[in-house]
């Protein structure tokens, strides 16, 4: 083993790997947030609650219905996506033409209600959720012991992020979506049901948050406050990445996971604020974000 700046390569490799794993959550979450913001013009503060609901949906499916992790991984996002459908149809659609603030306040209020309800019923300490048997155990990489489950998390996250990127950037459906973001009136004139696309986008974003929640369930306790803990970081990631490209959100998510991990190695006390320091710096230097386009 060798040393870089007095840090053993062993510590460095393991931290970078763990950073990438955390980054994969940031990437999935910020991708959904960026999609919703782009299409709906809504700052979806409910995103953290939807992440938490995904984890709880998986926990409930397992404990009340005996549904396995793998089935829950598909079912839970669908359930949460449909709850998103209700939210979008009942409330959000009235706010699209208004200032960002209205959408933000509504989704913030809704997330407080949802989290409060779960806290009332389940407390804050969380429910245990075991890693599925097929993914338990781990691999000794020489420099660290890597649990198989974390390998699965990073691959699943990358797979989903890249699939969404492909759909939006490389398919006809994605081109409608992008066009709808640029000029909804014109796209509607071509006979495309833009309203349905908006609803589907919100469902996709909510489902993505829930998917991340199910992935997180065996790592963290399934807890009513898990969403509230992660949401400020996700917002910072989106601000840093900018709204310009889907790939921007994905890359920023992973990179910030790495920056955070590196901070944990050299000065752990600052690891909670480092992302916000980066955010402030980016806002000063490049207000539209790293990958954003100046409006």
């Amino acid at each position, binding site marked *: 083993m060798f040393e870089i700046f007095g840090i053993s390569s062993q*510590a460095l490799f*393991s*931290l970078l790997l*763990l*950073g990438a*794993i*955390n980054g994969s959550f940031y990437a999935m979450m910020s991708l959904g947030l*960026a999609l919703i*913001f*782009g299409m709906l*013009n809504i700052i979806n503060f409910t995103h953290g609650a939807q992440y938490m609901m995904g984890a709880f949906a998986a926990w409930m499916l397992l404990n009340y219905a005996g549904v396995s992790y793998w089935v829950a991984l598909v079912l839970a996002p669908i359930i949460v996506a449909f709850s998103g459908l209700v939210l979008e149809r009942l409330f959000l659609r009235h706010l699209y033409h208004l200032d*960002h*603030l209205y959408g933000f306040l509504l989704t*913030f209020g809704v997330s407080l209600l949802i989290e*409060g309800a779960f*806290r009332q019923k389940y*407390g*804050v*300490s*969380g*429910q*245990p959720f075991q*890693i599925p048997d097929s993914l338990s155990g781990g691999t000794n990489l020489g420099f*660290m*012991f890597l*649990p198989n*489950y*974390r390998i699965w998390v990073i691959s699943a996250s990358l797979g989903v992020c890249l699939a969404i990127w492909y759909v939006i950037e490389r398919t006809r459906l994605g081109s409608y979506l992008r066009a709808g*973001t640029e000029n909804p009136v014109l796209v509607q004139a071509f006979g495309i049901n833009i309203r349905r696309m908006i609803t589907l986008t919100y469902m996709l974003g909510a489902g993505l948050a829930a998917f991340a929640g199910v992935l997180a369930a065996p*790592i*963290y*306790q399934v*807890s009513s*406050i*898990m969403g509230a*803990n992660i949401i*400020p970081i996700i*917002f*910072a990631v*989106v*601000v840093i990445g900018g*709204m*310009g*490209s889907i790939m921007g959100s994905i890359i920023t998510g992973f990179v910030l996971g790495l920056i955070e991990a590196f901070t*944990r*190695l050299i000065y*752990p*006390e600052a*690891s*909670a*604020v480092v992302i*916000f320091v980066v*955010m402030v710096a980016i*806002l000063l230097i490049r*207000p*539209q*974000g790293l990958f*954003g*386009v100046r*409006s």
Partner: protein
Amino acid sequence: MRHSAAGLGFALAITFTGLAQAQTAGGAVKIGVVNDQSSIYADLSGMGGVEAARMALEDFGGKALGKPIELVTADHQNKPDIATSIVSKWFDADNVDAVFDVPNSSAMLAVQEIARKAQKLVVVSTGATSDFTGKACSPYGIHWTYDTYALAYGTGKVMVQQGGDTWFFITADYAFGHALERDTAAFVKAGGGKVLGALRHPFPNQDFSTYLVQAQASKAKIIGLANAGSDVINTIKQAAEFGVARAGSGQRLAGLLLFDSDIHSLGLPTAQSIVMTTGFYWDLNDDTRAFSKRFFERRKAMPTMAQAGVHSAVQHYLKAVQAVGSKDSLAAVKKMKEMPVNDFFAKNGQVREDGRMVHDMYLAQVKTPEESKYAWDYLKILKVIPGQEAFRPLAESECPLIKTR
């Protein structure tokens, strides 16, 4: 997708403010319970602590000095600034006589100063730092259930005696974690052990894998967890995932502060065999069981030591006020220090001059799933630590109240 980032930046600027419910009162004894009802300590303290205070009022007959006792409660969300603004208002505008529970060491130290100025009582149950009755002690402050010194004495000292002579700490980066790490390290060193390192994590935190991997690489025999609530739950859970401190690895975890609610949340398969120190366990004897079952009826959970401590503290305060015949703070404190504490929580407990309530502590080990016979059957008591041993001796106290004697 061309919207500016500024709107999102705004979202981050929102802060959450606390809600307090309070009414004014004339003459009646008025008690406030301020604790964490929404953040990571809400299960071990929170509404359970409020319920314990309510039960104490009912058990006392609901009246003191001939008038109905009033109870106000508030959520400080683990934020010292919210805690101080709530308690200031209670003391200055709402005629609250005494404040109870106060989790979060930073908040409890801040509230200690508010109470000192207002010349009103603060009786801490959930809060942990031993500085509360050490260098920050006050004639109006009483520390009831446990403190970082007692935890360190219980768990730290025993683990060193069992051969755990090299330590690595994973510490919550605020007053509580620092105090617990400091007090434990002192016992480790006094026992001839060595502290190989410590990592301070932001409070609260979710992912502990990076810290655990470093703790593992340190090769320390004991990884001391100087954090609490969901933080310690996630640390233990992720340690299991990463194979840190697994059987045969030569490393062990020491949960320096664990509550029954944490074990309940982790489940015995993950929490089994962890050694811990506690000030109360629901299944100790008939008295503790009787109280705990009543509590369970209301909360659907057994009381943690913090919640049981609130009941005991409130009752003792009410007895003192009744005995003195007035709400005068200093007179009440004097009486509380004179009267021994004898209830389901403590036998012959004594509130010392520095404000420390000295009572027996328990060294316990989490049962294995096979050993656990019924719901909430989580701990086996390894040893009763006599109060005189468990808490910092007055001779070592930094409390100015003692030094000026």
